[in-house]
């Protein structure tokens, strides 16, 4: 079924089409929500909010991009709306405290593709900004505008996320080498 048929069906509030839209885009939407939210329950809640918004506001969709892109943008915005209320982006973390013994244990059990858990090791503010900058491709100015913070804060949080993730990946690689060496 094409995107146009999805759009028309959603505009007519056709429940069959709505179900098809859900089945088609739910994995991606839920994936985004998982990246931003700390636990699955909250991620599911955000996914639900996303689809409700999509079904209620399909009339507002302008054909200047893909329907999928529009849905995913709604997913990101839903998560940000929720996180913006609770997250303090001004918190700064010392880089020395990046690697703890607990993290080492966690990393030891990580799979190569288990980036979900790697991202969970980041503080909330840093994780959100890393997601927006790296995964969604937003610029610092756009992130600052979206989260109502300064560009400097966005940059420093990204910097912290980068350094921490580099160390995590390095630890992961070392543990992998050791494993292969045995």
């Amino acid at each position, binding site marked *: 079924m094409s995107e146009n048929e999805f759009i028309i069906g959603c505009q007519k509030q056709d429940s069959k089409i709505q179900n098809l839209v859900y089945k088609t885009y739910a*994995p991606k939407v*839920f994936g985004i929500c998982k*990246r931003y939210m700390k636990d699955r329950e909250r991620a599911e809640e955000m996914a639900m909010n996303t689809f409700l918004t999509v079904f209620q506001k399909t009339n507002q969709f302008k054909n200047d991009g893909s329907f999928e892109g529009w849905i995913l943008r709604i997913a990101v915005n839903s998560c940000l709306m929720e996180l913006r209320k609770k997250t303090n982006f001004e918190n700064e973390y010392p880089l020395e405290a990046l690697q703890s013994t607990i993290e080492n244990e966690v990393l030891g059990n990580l799979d190569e593709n288990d980036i979900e858990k790697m991202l969970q090791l980041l503080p909330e503010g840093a994780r959100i900004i890393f997601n927006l900058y790296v995964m969604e491709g937003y610029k610092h100015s756009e992130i600052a505008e979206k989260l109502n913070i300064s560009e400097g804060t966005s940059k420093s949080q990204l910097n912290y996320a980068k350094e921490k993730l580099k160390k995590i990946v390095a630890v992961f690689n070392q543990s992998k080498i050791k494993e292969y060496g045995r």
Partner: protein
Amino acid sequence: MEDKELFDFFKNRSTSFEEMPSEALWNKIQTNIEASKSTTFFSASKIIILSVLVLATALIGVFIYTNFKTSIEEKTIHPNVNEIIEQPSSTASRIVSEIDTLKKRAETDTLKPKKAFKKPIVTVKKDTFMVFKKLQPLLKTDALKVIDSKFDIDSLKIKPLVKGNRLLFETKQLLTPIEFDSFVQKVLDETKTNYGALIVIKAKGNKPFRQIVKFPEKISIPKSTIQPIHTTTKLIMKDSMIVSDSIYFNTKK
């Protein structure tokens, strides 16, 4: 590790996040959609009902106000007139008798000066009625005239006061605007042949009416009725006519 390498590491593995949510989520979404649909319907019907109620209230309000206004207007004119017609004879005659007694007392009283009753303040005929002063502003001339049903415009036989070219018709009788109009019409009918005369009509309670009786612009005269006196010239009666007060004839000479 370079920044780019790190970014690519995560970007390339971002699909690992994708996962179908639990079945219960779709049910939740569906329930919410239904709820919002019914809420929308309910709020829409609520708005419609409310607007209909407001409209009905407004209409009823307007209807009541109009009725109330009309009844007030009716009460202002008719009931008072009835009251005046019904009430008077006893009250009026009582007032008249009181005035008479006071008059007599004043005449017989030689000690006091008679000036107290030189001019009685109220003069009321026994067969008419009293119109109290405070009621007067409520009554228009027409309403007062309803009481005096004997009035007839033909009874106004007024001789005009002639002053040169001016005819003055004046009556001291109180006339309503309608009566004055018919009076004016009557006078104009009577004086329609007084060409050039200034007609002035005056009546109590009305603005004086002034009009000059105009000469007819053209009056055709039948050929046979007028013969020119002049015999030497051959005048043709063909186009004879009266213009103002002159008779014109066309001649070929």
